[in-house]
């Protein structure tokens, strides 16, 4: 009868398996979540192209863009704000380590009027389409990716 001799495990394969089991336990997701929140509809970048300082009136702007989100009184002048916001959240729950990320961007248009309600300045920032589901280490502001997203949005790149 062969007698069993007990000795400590020393082989590389055994250590590899144990290390793998630890690593697996740390990376196996036990839960994940994604969420999206949006405020107002994205603005149409093409809508502000016809606006011409000194010519366009506040009434024409409201005809084109609708009711503003905010009206600011600047002395005898005024400014209207139009905006839309998109936030994308991601959560990854592992056994011990959890990750969460939220990326929030907005479309904003500000139109400035003189005391006769005639347009003096217009500015637009359109970024809701760049919002991404990501994790904390992701580079969500990568210029190349942003440029690719811009090309697909009408008024910024796509026609």
């Amino acid at each position, binding site marked *: 009868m*062969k007698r*069993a*001799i*007990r*000795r*400590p*495990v020393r*082989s*590389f*394969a*055994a250590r590899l*398996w*144990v290390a*793998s*089991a*630890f690593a*697996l*336990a*740390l990376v196996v997701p*036990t839960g994940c979540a994604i969420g999206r929140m949006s405020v107002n509809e994205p603005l149409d970048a093409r809508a502000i192209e016809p606006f011409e300082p000194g010519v366009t009136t506040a009434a024409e702007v409201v005809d084109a863009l609708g009711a503003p989100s905010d009206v*600011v*009184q*600047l*002395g*005898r*002048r005024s*400014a209207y*704000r139009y905006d839309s916001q998109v936030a994308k959240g991601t959560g990854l729950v592992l*056994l*011990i*380590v*959890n*990750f*969460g*990320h*939220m*990326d*929030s*961007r*907005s479309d*904003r*248009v*500000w139109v*400035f009027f003189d*005391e006769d309600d005639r347009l*003096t*300045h*217009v*500015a*637009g*920032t359109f*970024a809701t389409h*760049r919002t991404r589901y990501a994790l*904390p280490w992701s580079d*969500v*502001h990568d210029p190349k990716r942003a440029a690719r997203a811009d090309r697909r949005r009408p008024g910024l790149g796509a026609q």
Partner: protein
Amino acid sequence: MSGFVSDSACGSASGLSRQRIRALAAAAFLPLWIAGGCLQVTWVRLRFEEAPAPAALAALEAGGADLAECLERLGAPVDVWALGDGRTALAWAFDDTWSWNVSLSAAVERSAPSASLRFGESWADVESVVVLVDEAGRVLEVRRGRLPDVAPKRRRPADPDADAPRGEEPAR
């Protein structure tokens, strides 16, 4: 982690049977599985808007810019408000906040007191650019920093004529 293996199980080249490997993996996995309930490490990052290009800011800070150039370089601001004396403040804000949290909790027995420990830290990078312009649209000042520190106080909307530049007759 250590274990024992009998010579009889050392038939494979690696010296371990499949059964033994499974047992070792389970032994490694189980404490982590249990620990997952009482030890949690959380890393959260919140990002709001994008920072303006440094070149755009440098051009504005060089002076001589007007409101049109400011809007062209920085885009639409996050907020605009009146300061009185015909001046206007425009703000661009962007945020990149990191936080991590470690929590450890233990309940030994039903009748024994439970203990929990939580530690966390966060780095808030709430930056902003505030530009002050006069009534003619000339940029008077460009401020950079945390929004509460650099934003001038807001004024309640009042009689529009009260905001006319000094020395000018209000329009009637």
